[in-house]
Each structure stands twice: as C-alpha cells, then as structure tokens.
C-alpha cells in the first residue's frame, strides 16, 4: 500500500495531478449547486410577486 502510494518516488506528481483534477470537479459541482439555490430563490421571489399581482404571468415565451 505504502509502495503504491509512493508511486516509485513520483507521488507528488501523480497525486498532484489527480488530486487537483478531483478538486476542480468537486468545486465545479459545488458552484453549480450554489447557483441552483440562488436561481431557485430568485424564481420563488418572482412567483410570490406574481401571486400578489393576482397570478398574472407575462406572456413572452
């Protein structure tokens, strides 16, 4: 196991490559999740506003 992790002395290079790749993908997914929450909040606010106006929705599709 130790031998495997050492990568024949190339551990920093090998794990540095894969570690940053994993990190980048995780960060991308976290950012998307945050954006989804922000969009949902915004849409919920819009829906509330529309509700107060008597359910009128703008016709532009």
């Amino acid at each position, binding site marked *: 196991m130790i031998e495997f992790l050492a990568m024949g002395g190339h551990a920093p*290079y090998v794990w540095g*490559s894969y570690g*940053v790749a994993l990190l980048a993908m995780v960060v991308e997914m976290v950012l*998307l999740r945050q954006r*989804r929450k922000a*969009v949902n909040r915004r849409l919920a606010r*819009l829906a509330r506003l529309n509700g107060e106006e008597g359910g009128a929705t703008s016709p532009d599709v």
Partner: protein
Amino acid sequence: MAEQRVQWFKFASPPNFYDLAGRLAPWFGGLAAILFVVGLYIGFILAPPDYQQGNSYRIMFIHVPTAWMSMFLYVLMAVYAAIGLIWRVKTAEVMAKAIAPTGAMFAFLCLWSGALWGKPTWGTYWVWDARLTSQLILLFLYLGYMALHAAIEDRQRAANASAILALAGVVNVPIIYFSVVWWNTLHQGASITVTSAPTMETVMFVALLVMTFACWMYAIAVVLWRARLELLERERRAAWVLERTGEKA
C-alpha cells in the same frame, strides 16, 4: 422523415430542452462516476509501471483525456455558438455559454497535469514550445469568451460578440493538434501507437479510453446541468418557467 425532423426541433425549444436535460443529466453523471472508478482501477491497478518512466506515466490517464476534452469542447462550443449566431436558436446560445467553464477547467487540468508530468520526465514544469503555448492560448480563449460574455449587459449582444470570438478561436485547435508535427517540440507526438510490449500497450490504451469516456460523461452531465440553470435565468418570466417554479431545478 419530416416527422423525425419535427421531433428533433422540438428539443430545441427551451421547455422541452429543460425537461430532457433534467432527465438525462443524472444518467450521464452516474455513468461518469462508474467509468472514473473503472478507468482508475485499470490505470493504477491493472496497468504495470512503464519500463522507462516508472509510475509517472500514469499521469497520462488524466492528462490526455483532459487535453482531448478541452479541444473537443472548444469545437463543440464554437458549433453551438455558430448555430445561435446564424439561426438564433436560444438553446444553442445557452449550450455554448454552458460549455465554456467546463472546457476551461479541462484546459487548465491538461496544463496542470502536463506540468507535473514534465518535471520528472523533462526536468522542467514548463517550456514555451508550440504544443504547450497553443494549449495555454486555448485556456485564454475560453477565459476570454467567458469574460466577454460577462462584460456585455445585453444578452443578445453578449451572445453574438462571444460567438464571433469562439469562432475565430477555432483556428487554434488544429494548431494545437498538429503543433507536434509542424514544429520541433519538446512535447512528444501522438502516442496512441507507442511501441512497447503489446499487452502493456493494450491495458494502457483501455485505461486511457475509459478515462476519456468518463470525462465525456462528466462534461455532458455538468454542461446540461449548467444549461438548465442558464435557461431558467434567461427565461425566468416565461410561462413555462413559472409552471415549473415549485419544482427543483
């Protein structure tokens, strides 16, 4: 034939695209996770160390797929941008914009893993040779595209201007690809047919292929997810969005 065409155009309408993307994205994401596990297993457990480079060559299984993805995605982004520019297809504009961050991420990962591979192999993290420089330009093209999109307030003008930038930048993709042939580069040429023991070659090639598919599936899942959010933001006042407001994006 005509009916089929209608079917395809149907998916270009924002609500249909939104629903379809929402159904498909989790499958692509799940497939990506499985393929990454399989690819890493083949690449790290089954594939033996390289007779010359030892274990540092295993960086190839992330370096090469990310390099391919950064180029494929750029061309795909330019195609969507062109469709948006010429035919005013809203979902195509959204797709072009949604591809850019993921493409930039792959371009960065390619450069990063390349630098970490270069150090033990060439003795340097970076060298200004044609392959490395043109790949760095690709990253800047992605970033420029995103910056231009963000800098222009009007959505339509932002889409048009950045589409032209994306199209002009396509010229860089064949330059990257053929740079190792056209110029004398420190970077090696295409090595899919690298000559060593054939059994080794096969298992390495399979690992590379599986990792490439994994990156593709990941990219599709993430891009569809981002395109859905982009559509919701753009169309937030449209009836179809209001109909789906209660539902999670």
